[in-house]
């Protein structure tokens, strides 16, 4: 046994410093026995767009498992549609995705029209498509500002709220409702466009494009934003498909699929010159980037629609009391949050027999337990924000 302290000279400060450093290193390298911790996020949290609750089990900063708990806003729309007449159903489904309400109505109306073998006149289809795309713009502008807030950059959301107002004003002046237009009718739309609306809308589209440029500088070009988003929450394309992801979440994973282009729809998308944006990375940054490009693309689509607006009636001939013939139809459209569809079963009554509502956020969020496993706590906010869900769209 040799005495290790034999050579120690307690007056040699250099030697003492060396020993202290060695001891500190030893402590760092020891695998610390940390207790698991359960972190409850929500039901009220700014990142949840409603009342989503996430129970995460943590080991230090690492997420071991995360389980979303829903149902705080379940309103039972599928059951309620069974006791509403077809025109009344649109009032309910307006409130599914409450920032893109107009788009919620369209697939349901199309499904009912398909069963009734009615087709809205071209002018109505153009008005529908224009308002659909404006709803998309208003919806995604909120996301573009909100995502930056989740990462600590508060400025962007104020720009988003300021410029979104121009679009909402236009939606309001055409439909009467800022958030819940309830404007679609089976066979057409309720009213024609008000005077001067087209010119005003075009100038608001220019403002949206300016906003997009601003976001490109302020958010996308920001180093902190990039470093917190790049490589965070990567979803491979096969996983995205298996979980039924849609919209920008799927296109952000490099899947070139857009229902507006790829499905045969009576709406006017087929007449427009536009492009589907994709990004191969599949991370949070790519989802933001795709949505930014889509917003800009949508402004050009609205302008083309207004330039090519056909004249003519806005309603097809439909009976006053609507009874939809027995049958089943499924119509799906590319809504702001992703693919939304209604499976309508009719038995020839005033009310639907059953309506299955397929919402985008439900499937988009179903990947979250898989995606959040093994990430760090601050990335939870990044990932949830980049998936972009509206809680009403999950809970229905």
């Amino acid at each position, binding site marked *: 046994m040799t005495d290790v302290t034999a050579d120690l000279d307690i007056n040699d400060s250099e030697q003492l410093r060396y020993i202290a450093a060695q001891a500190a290193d030893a402590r760092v390298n020891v695998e610390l026995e940390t207790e698991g911790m359960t972190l409850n996020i929500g039901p009220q949290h700014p990142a949840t767009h409603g009342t989503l609750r996430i129970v995460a089990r943590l080991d230090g900063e690492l997420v071991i498992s995360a389980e979303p708990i*829903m*149902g705080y806003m*379940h309103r*039972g729309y*599928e*059951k*309620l549609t*069974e*006791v*509403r*007449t077809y*025109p*009344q159903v649109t009032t309910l489904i307006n409130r599914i995705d409450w920032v893109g309400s107009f788009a919620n109505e369209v697939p349901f109306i199309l499904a009912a029209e*398909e069963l009734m073998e009615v087709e809205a006149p071209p002018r109505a289809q153009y008005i529908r498509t224009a308002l659909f795309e404006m709803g998309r713009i208003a919806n995604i502008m909120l996301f573009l500002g909100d995502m930056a807030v989740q990462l600590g950059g508060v400025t962007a959301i104020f720009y988003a709220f300021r410029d979104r107002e121009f679009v909402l004003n236009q939606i309001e002046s055409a439909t009467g409702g800022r958030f819940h237009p309830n404007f679609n*009718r089976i066979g*057409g739309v*309720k*009213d024609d466009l008000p005077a001067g609306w087209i010119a005003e809308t075009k100038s608001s589209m220019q403002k949206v494009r300016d906003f997009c440029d601003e976001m490109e500088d302020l958010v996308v070009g920001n180093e902190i934003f990039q470093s917190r988003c790049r490589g965070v929450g990567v979803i491979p394309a*096969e*996983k995205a*498909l*298996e*979980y*039924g992801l*849609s919209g920008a979440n*799927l296109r952000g994973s490099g*899947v070139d*699929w857009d229902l507006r282009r*790829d*499905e*045969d729809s009576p709406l006017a998308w087929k007449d427009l010159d536009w492009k589907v944006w994709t990004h191969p990375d599949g991370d949070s940054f790519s989802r933001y980037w795709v949505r930014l490009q889509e917003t800009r693309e949508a402004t050009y689509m609205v302008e083309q629609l207004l330039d090519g607006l056909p004249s003519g*009636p*806005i*309603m097809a001939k*439909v009976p*006053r*009391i609507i009874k939809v013939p027995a*049958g*089943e*139809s*499924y119509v*799906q459209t590319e809504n702001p949050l992703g*693919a939304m*569809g209604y*499976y309508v*079963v009719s*038995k020839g009554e*005033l009310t639907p027999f*059953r309506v*299955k509502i*397929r919402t985008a956020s*439900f*499937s988009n969020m*179903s*990947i979250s337990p*898989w995606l959040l496993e093994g990430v760090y706590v601050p990335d939870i906010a990044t990932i949830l924000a980049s998936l972009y869900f509206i809680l009403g769209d999950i*809970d229905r």
Partner: protein
Amino acid sequence: MSTTEEVVEEEVVTDTVREAIAKAFADELGDGFIEQHINPGSDLWIRIAASSWVDAALFARNKLGMTWLDFISAMDWLPNPYGREMESEQDWVVHGKEDATPEEMTTGIAGGDTRFQMMMRLYSTEEHIGVTIKADVGDVAGAAPAIESLIPVYAGASWHEREVWEMFGIDIIGHPDKRVLYLPTGFEGNPMRKDYPLVARRVKPWPGIVDVEAMPGEADDEADAADGADA
């Protein structure tokens, strides 16, 4: 002019792509394949035996490229057993109280023999073609409905199946995490079943059924008619 239009219509009536898909399912599933229905140019339904449920999904995903899971849901074909009984007294004043004898049970596209049916919708993002697959579960009266879980084929099936399980009471065999998704813990009953009463309807009159809104353009016609009557 008229002849070319006829040709176009004939082309729409046959849908070779969807027929080929239905035939592929029939060849693969054999006895498990029961019925098919095609709306040319728009949609395809097939009905299979519950025992072929997972096989059909595997085949669609691996061989037909239907890698995108759209949704999984269920149907309860039982006619509303309450008739107008569950409506409020105000509704009876307006519509009269109809006889509440339940009508015959009918099923929808591609048929069906049982009260409960499972549905899944699969889609190919390459070919842009979707299929709705139905399977009868339980017996005719709807007792003991059960179906195998699709989680091994599509991981995203989990939440859809939890919803079906709690809302329709259809047992999902092999689901690892059978907890309520939307309903509060300890909730009794399966709300989406037709015999689960919607009690709120009893205390509130049917909203807006009496005053049917005038269609755009129709109000003018009525005004004209009224003018004519006055004159």
